[in-house]
């Protein structure tokens, strides 16, 4: 899986590509942890090019979401393919995460709640 990181103002954008399974869940966890450690707790994760997510991937998002919310931040998810959205849906995680169809909507959501 590939990870790309960028930032817009104080919002960190993490773009993922490929299969998010057990073998790379640890890498994602480290990446998001490093953002949190540098006090960047407002994140948008672009899942546009993610084809598969395993429960290990869900676990990482859940663990990191708990951390950023404690610090007043959020992890918003954007551009989920239908099959990825279904995985979040079945686990009930669509109730937990703010999920958006486009990056713009996800970014705008930060502005609204300010």
């Amino acid at each position, binding site marked *: 899986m590939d990870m790309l990181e960028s930032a817009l103002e104080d919002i960190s954008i993490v773009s993922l590509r490929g299969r998010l399974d*057990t073998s790379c869940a640890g890498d994602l966890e480290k990446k998001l942890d490093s953002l949190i450690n540098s006090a960047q707790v407002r994140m948008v994760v672009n899942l546009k090019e993610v084809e598969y997510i395993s429960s*290990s991937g869900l676990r990482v998002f859940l663990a990191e979401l708990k951390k950023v919310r404690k610090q007043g931040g959020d992890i918003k998810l954007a551009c989920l393919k239908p099959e990825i959205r279904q995985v979040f849906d079945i686990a009930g995680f669509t109730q*937990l995460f703010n999920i958006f169809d486009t990056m713009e909507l996800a970014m705008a959501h930060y502005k609204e709640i300010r």
Partner: protein
Amino acid sequence: MDTSVIDLLVELIQTTSVIVVFAYLVSRSKFFLGILDKQFSFKNQIVLILLFGALSIFGTYGGIKLPSGAIANIRDLGPMVAGLAAGPLTGLGAGLIGGVHRYLLGGFVCVPCALSTILAGLLGGFIHMLRKREFATIWQATLFAALMECLHMGLTLLLARPFSEAVSVVKQVIVPMVIANSLGMAVFAFVVRNLIHERNTAAEKELYRRALERTEYEMETARGIQQSFLPESPPKIAGFELGALNKPARQVGGDFYDFIPISEGKMGIVIADVSGKGVPAALFMALSRAIVRANVHETITTSEAIEKANHLIAEEAKFGMFVTLFYAVLDSKRRLLQYVNAGHNPPLMLKHLASDLILLNANGIALGALDDIRLEQKEVGLVADDIVVLYTDGIIEAVNDKGEQFGMDRLEKIISNNTNLPAQQLADQINDEVQRFAQGQQQFDDLTLIVLKVTGADTSAEK
């Protein structure tokens, strides 16, 4: 270079070849290996003294008599190696054997030659101590041999009389002796260093192999313990048939299923999948299973039981661990399935009469994600020949060599085509087809199945 020097060199190199064979054989002996393992026992040292003393004597005879009567030789080599390998005492012992022997042969250089051989052993031993009882590196050993032979020549010039004859002997032998002893030492050191390296590698491999074996054994034990957490066989319920199977992708896994007797005529059925894989998932599985078991009770509703279990699991759910779980209570008298779905793949139900497949959906969220959750509780009536298949995502996400997933459609088809099979056989059939589909591909997920079939037309008739 005149021919006599070349002849000398050739002969000395031949002698050195004998030394190489000696080095190889001696270095493989248990005494030498014992010394390398830092077992400086009396026995090991005595044997080395005798062996390298003998080598020293061979070095004298294997040497070449010069016209002057002096012998160009590699007598110092044995004591030097003995010293480098085992310390000053062993070096001195071997040196004394070679040195005294040389002294007894007589000749005008006998005193400096004997002294040099004894010194060679002692100095080798000091290097051994300086190297903290390790054999010197190839370069150190070779340099030592070359310098030792220069010292040998110096002593000859200092002690042998008449001086003019000593000078002529030294002139003749210094080049062949420095070269031959250095070469002999280089080869010896090469053999010994290689041996040390081989043994270190072998020792590391052995350690690694043992650690691996221990881990393997522990994992097998863990697997046994985990399997003992699963029901040995599905319970027998009048008017119903139950079949189940569980195949962890690794030795231990995060899937589990359970049958929990609640009260007369009521049986709890659990299927669950812990996030992640391997040991972390297995530990969380054991915890979740115990909590669910402890909270299921006849006095509270199905949803309350799992909501309470969630509260306890959430307290322990560090690192984002969660468990998706489907829990149903089978009321065999009222022929009713009451269920909640905590973020699990919705089970498939084939209604025989409608020959329609329905999904047992209910609003919920995986356990451990939130401290307090509300789960929707639903009910579905059961009639004869209805089939309910509960499964984990290892079934539908099994991948074949083209990267395709097994998927819901294939699962539905197997169920529809095999309605006549008994519950356990249907579970086995689904598993077989998944295995066939995914043949040769490494599967990453555990695979768990429960099949519930309604058999009797009326439960009262069974009594």
